[in-house]
């Protein structure tokens, strides 16, 4: 009670702020676009551990190498044996290496956003001239670019190797372009899913497990049910089942429109109509991820 009285009758009208002669800042103001660009480039570097400790470089670099080595081996084999074609399609490569891609997005998405939440640095970002949308766009774009580097680099290795092995130029370029479109979609989709899940939890370990669970469990579940549907000769259901996991979504889109051979049981590619649904679902999921992230950061830590 005594304390309250003291506060209430404090020296109210005698306080004033003295001007003690600090100079104001009159240099150039770099503005919102610059802050957004910086956040993008720092997040992209961070996704490969650049500018961070040696320990945090190990995992992303290791996964990057693991992604590229099989491509290099395939190219070496193709050149040495003078094969007529690469052993693996450009579009198929990411589907085969999906475990590595999932691990990468699971380890790097929480790295990108969870730490900001845990150490309560998000309000510091927003004290700069950036808006919610800028933060979300920069983080989304950075992770998607990092994923595109991860998934695109082995395709470049394959393409260069194919040209060195003097395979048909037009054919290889077409396949390479189709592969790039497919991995671009995959990068956007995986980055969106990973960021949405990671932005919910401030704990990094839990974020990693949640992302990997969503990506691999859904794939495992869909594959098991697809295999059973195939055994039961209900082949019509296989394509529709593929809509329920990210990997099979990408697989369906590229086998419908990008000339890939489907990895579904029995090679059951979706028809054009189903393919259109696949594309709509993929684009819808990417947009939904962006919308959810915007909503998530509307009032975070503020």
């Amino acid at each position: 009670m005594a304390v309250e009285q003291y506060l209430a009758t404090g020296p109210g009208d005698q306080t004033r702020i003295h001007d003690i002669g600090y100079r104001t800042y009159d240099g150039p103001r770099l503005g919102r676009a610059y802050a957004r660009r910086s956040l993008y480039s720092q997040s992209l570097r961070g996704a490969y551990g650049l500018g961070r400790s040696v320990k945090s470089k190990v995992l992303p670099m290791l996964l990057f190498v693991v992604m590229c080595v099989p491509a290099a081996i395939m190219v070496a084999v193709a050149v040495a044996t003078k094969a007529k074609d690469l052993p693996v399609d450009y579009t198929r490569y990411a589907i085969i290496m999906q475990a590595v891609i999932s691990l990468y997005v699971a380890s790097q998405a929480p790295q990108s956003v969870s730490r900001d939440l845990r150490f309560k640095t998000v309000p510091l970002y927003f004290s700069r001239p950036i808006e919610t949308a800028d933060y979300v766009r920069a983080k989304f774009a950075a992770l998607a670019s990092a994923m595109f580097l991860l998934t695109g680099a082995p395709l470049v290795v394959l393409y260069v190797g194919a040209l060195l092995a003097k395979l048909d130029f037009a054919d290889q370029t077409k396949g390479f372009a189709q592969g790039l479109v497919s991995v671009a979609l995959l990068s956007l989709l995986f980055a969106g899913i990973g960021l949405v899940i990671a932005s919910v939890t401030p704990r990094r370990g839990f974020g990693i497990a949640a992302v990997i669970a969503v990506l691999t469990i859904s794939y495992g579940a869909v594959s098991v049910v697809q295999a059973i549907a195939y055994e039961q000769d209900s082949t019509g259901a296989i394509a529709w089942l593929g809509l329920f996991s990210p990997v099979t979504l990408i697989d369906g889109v590229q086998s419908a429109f990008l000339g890939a051979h489907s990895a579904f049981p029995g090679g059951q590619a979706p028809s054009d109509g189903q393919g259109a649904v696949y594309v709509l679902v993929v684009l819808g999921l990417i947009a939904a991820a962006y919308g959810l992230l915007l909503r998530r950061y509307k009032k975070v830590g503020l």
Partner: protein
Amino acid sequence: MYDPTVARLTYRALLGRRRALILGALPLLLVVIAVAVRGLTGADDQTAVNVLGGFALATMVPIIGVIAGTGAIGPEIDDGSVVYLLSKPVKRPTIIFTKLIVAIGVTMAFSAVPTLIAGLILNGNGQQIAVAYTVAALVASIAYAALFLLLGTVSRHAVVFGLVYALVWEALFGSLVAGARTLSVQQWSLAVAHKVAGGDLVTSDVGLTTATVLLVAVTVLATWYAGQRLRSLTLAGEE
């Protein structure tokens, strides 16, 4: 060897707030799949083995083991609050043992129980398949919890390494290289399941004796070494 307060704190760290709901999503998915498959194909032993072996034991049990095992100690070490626990007059092997018991309990509750339910839905425990896989899940829970608890004390990236072991080593290398299968918790627990089911539906690459010895050895060694790690734990800064 068992400290109720430590156990209570660990339970709260693992299941508090909304985490129990997230952990419960996986078992729920298994049961939903079981219902869907039963509706699609009717009761069939081979299908039950495919779903329980391919999805429940190969994917769900390891992932729940990773979450519970590393989650029992990892976050505390990560944010440094483990020093408040370590500064209490509780032996560090006791802390590890208590956390192990809790991690095993959580893994069993969220993996073995739904496996049994899914098995009953799929073929009504025909040829003991549901019980066999439930026993396998129980046994695997113990080994996974001990293994991933150790990982939690060894590395700050325990979850990633745990997932690499569970998904890349057991699933990928296990299907490519036969030798990798001998060193896999999944195969050891399948050996126990094979003994329970008896028939040819549930098979394993390792014998029962080898499997039992390896299971016990891994569990005991991992727990002992985790206790040692905690005794000499140094807290590092953020990366």
